[in-house]
């Protein structure tokens, strides 16, 4: 009996050992290797956007040329789907397995990563002085500053086809009513007035998000009141327009017939080649037009989403994504050295060389070469005059996760603008509660 149970015990022990071995096998950490002062840093990011990988590669190469003892290895193996990437980032940070540096959004999405606990604080570094205040706001918490900008800030608004506007004798609209009047003329002339591409669901929210300048112009304090749950979209007469504008477009019959299934590339093609007159889009897409339709680069112009009054027109700005480091990186000094390089005119020039001119850099002393493409050239006056508002996600951590589904519903006529705004307010409340904000 005793030998029997001893054997059985050994079997059981072997079984348990197999399980624990199997589990501990998963826990191989990230981090770089180090020999004789030479350091290799790993930069982790998603695989979704080709130009982002180009940016990372260019910065890594330029920095290594200047600092031969530090090598930056770009690991763009993250998932291309943004929801999956969010979860991977959170999991890696929570388990301490994030490589030395990673690329992630600035603004509200950063807050969900709990930077105070998980990230390397850059608050006391000298290079922070090179960054402008709007940028610092979008990558900081009360306790720290965490990221440096890896691209340029760009505007969101309407891409328009210049030859089509000229052919019909249209002016760039200063108010939403003028925009709708133009749309009617374009429609009557037999063209698609406004292109929408809900096949790529995220594109449906651009008009609503880019309309934030008009809310900001009506009340500069709106975002902080929103964070405190004192204002919302449905009950604010200006903010609700960010949703009813989508309703105006579908009710006016201004959209392309395939709006429900068309994708981003279809939209860019339509506005570049003149199939459609207007397309609500973010400035970064200019690079895709330049690559895919090089003959039409100068045919596409840009204006901010028009509001109520002609003398208050401006543009909503998206801060660029950032490079962050986890708190437990084994090479904090090398990481900071690299970040200082990015937050300097040399860093900006490296990005410009890799991507061309895509917008303004939030780094002091950076200059843009002449000959910016038309879309970017149309944005620069807004930067010069200061008629700008950061997108709401850079002013408030409250952003509902279902906005893009709601804007598809409003933009396809499934739901009206007002009830879309109400639904979005409920959606945003969940995010605020998850973040544990006071007042919700």
């Amino acid at each position, binding site marked *: 009996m005793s030998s029997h149970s001893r054997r059985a015990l050994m079997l059981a022990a072997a079984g348990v050992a197999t399980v624990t071995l199997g589990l501990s096998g998963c826990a191989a950490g990230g981090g770089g290797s180090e020999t004789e002062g030479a350091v290799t840093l790993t930069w982790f990011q998603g695989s979704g956007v080709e130009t982002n990988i180009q940016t990372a590669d260019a910065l890594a190469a330029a920095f290594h040329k200047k600092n031969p003892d530090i090598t930056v290895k770009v690991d763009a193996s993250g998932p291309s789907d943004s929801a999956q990437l969010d979860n991977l980032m959170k999991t890696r940070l929570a388990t301490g397995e994030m490589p030395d540096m990673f690329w992630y959004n600035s603004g509200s999405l950063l807050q969900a990563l709990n930077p105070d606990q998980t990230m390397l604080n850059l608050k006391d570094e000298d290079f922070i002085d090179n960054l402008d205040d709007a940028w610092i706001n979008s990558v900081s918490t009360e306790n720290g500053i965490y990221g440096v900008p890896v691209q340029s800030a760009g505007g969101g608004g309407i891409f328009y086809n210049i030859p089509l506007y000229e052919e019909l004798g249209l002016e760039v609209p200063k108010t939403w009513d003028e925009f709708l009047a133009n749309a009617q003329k374009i429609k009557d002339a037999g063209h698609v007035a406004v292109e929408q591409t809900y096949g790529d669901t995220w594109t449906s929210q651009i008009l609503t998000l880019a309309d934030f300048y008009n809310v900001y112009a009506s009340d500069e304090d709106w975002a902080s009141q929103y964070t405190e749950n004192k204002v919302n979209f449905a009950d604010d007469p200006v903010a609700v327009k960010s949703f009813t504008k989508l309703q105006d477009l579908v009710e006016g019959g201004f959209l392309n017939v395939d709006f*429900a299934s068309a994708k981003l590339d279809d939209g860019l093609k339509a506005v570049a080649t003149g199939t459609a007159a207007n397309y609500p889009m973010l400035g970064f897409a200019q690079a895709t037009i330049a690559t895919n339709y090089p003959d039409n680069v100068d045919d596409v112009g840009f204006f901010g989403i028009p509001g109520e009054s002609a003398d208050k027109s401006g543009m909503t700005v998206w801060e660029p994504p950032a490079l962050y480091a986890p708190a437990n990186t084994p090479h904090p000094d090398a990481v900071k050295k690299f970040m200082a390089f990015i937050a300097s005119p040399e860093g900006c020039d490296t990005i410009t060389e890799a991507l061309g001119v895509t917008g303004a850099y939030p780094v002091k002393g950076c200059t843009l070469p002449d000959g910016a493409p038309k879309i970017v050239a149309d944005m620069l006056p807004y930067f010069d005059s200061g008629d700008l508002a950061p997108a709401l996600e850079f002013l408030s951590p409250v952003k509902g996760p279902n906005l893009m589904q709601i804007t598809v519903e409003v933009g396809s006529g499934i739901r009206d603008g007002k009830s879309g705004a109400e639904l979005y307010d409920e959606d945003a409340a969940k995010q605020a509660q998850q973040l544990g904000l006071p007042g919700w």
Partner: protein
Amino acid sequence: MATLAPPLQKNELAKTSNLKRPRRYAHRMYPHWFLLPGAAIYTVLFIAPTFASFYFAFTRWTLFDVQFIGFDNFVTFFTDPQLSKGFTNTLIYGVLTSGLKVVLGLLLGVLLTSNILARGYLRAVVFFPVLVSTVGVGITFQALMDPFDGAINRTLAIFGIEGPGWLTDPTLVLYSIIAVDVWKGVGLAALIYMAGLVAIPRDYYEAARVDGAGAWDNFRHITLPLVRPATTTVVILSLIGGLRSFELIWAMTGGGPGFSSDVVASVIYKQYAAGFYGLSTAGNVVLFVLVSAIILPLFLWLNRKQTDL
């Protein structure tokens, strides 16, 4: 490990002189210790997370912090405006896919067990979609069902029919996905039915023929009652699959346009993707209870019917 087994067996055999009690003998031949490695894996990877999820369902959980908030997650979950739509869609999806798989599966089963030309080939063709990745099927059909460039509407256009927006019309989208789900899953239902059908003794049909029964009588009074165990299996399997369905819907529409094709599982996934880990865990507990509440009584009822025969 295998080399250890025979001596044990002999040892036990010698001790157990009373061979009239085979149950006890079987018990001794495989001691409970043998279960341990499997049980350990099952506990670590299944039981522990399941019970942990019952706890996390009552928390606000960011992966970094856990805060106990009582039933708040369940309140939020049930007051979610998308959820009523999600529940309705889940029920429609589960019942329709299950029902269609029963009817079409039985018809295909009867067809493919009868003497027809190229039977082996047809069996393979019917079963083939079961083997293909669900996500692959979803993406393929998303392309085929494109309202303007898709093969389906292009084909319809040849006959002068203007096809609808299969996946873009909010009233139609759920049924388009159901059709694809049935296409993909009916092969398995047919296979289960074929196994059930060939198990029916030929004698009954011969006896019925002597009594002058026609093909319909055979089907109605012999095939249908005797194939009931297969029906039970198909109903249970496809209903569980339908109520939990996610991959196909996610691959084809992501729950869209808007929320038109959201089911409970896709609502939960979106909450998880948004970082509402506590809330989505609560949703999974609800889904678990929902599926159990539908399947258990149904299973018992179907099985009781079976013994009545």
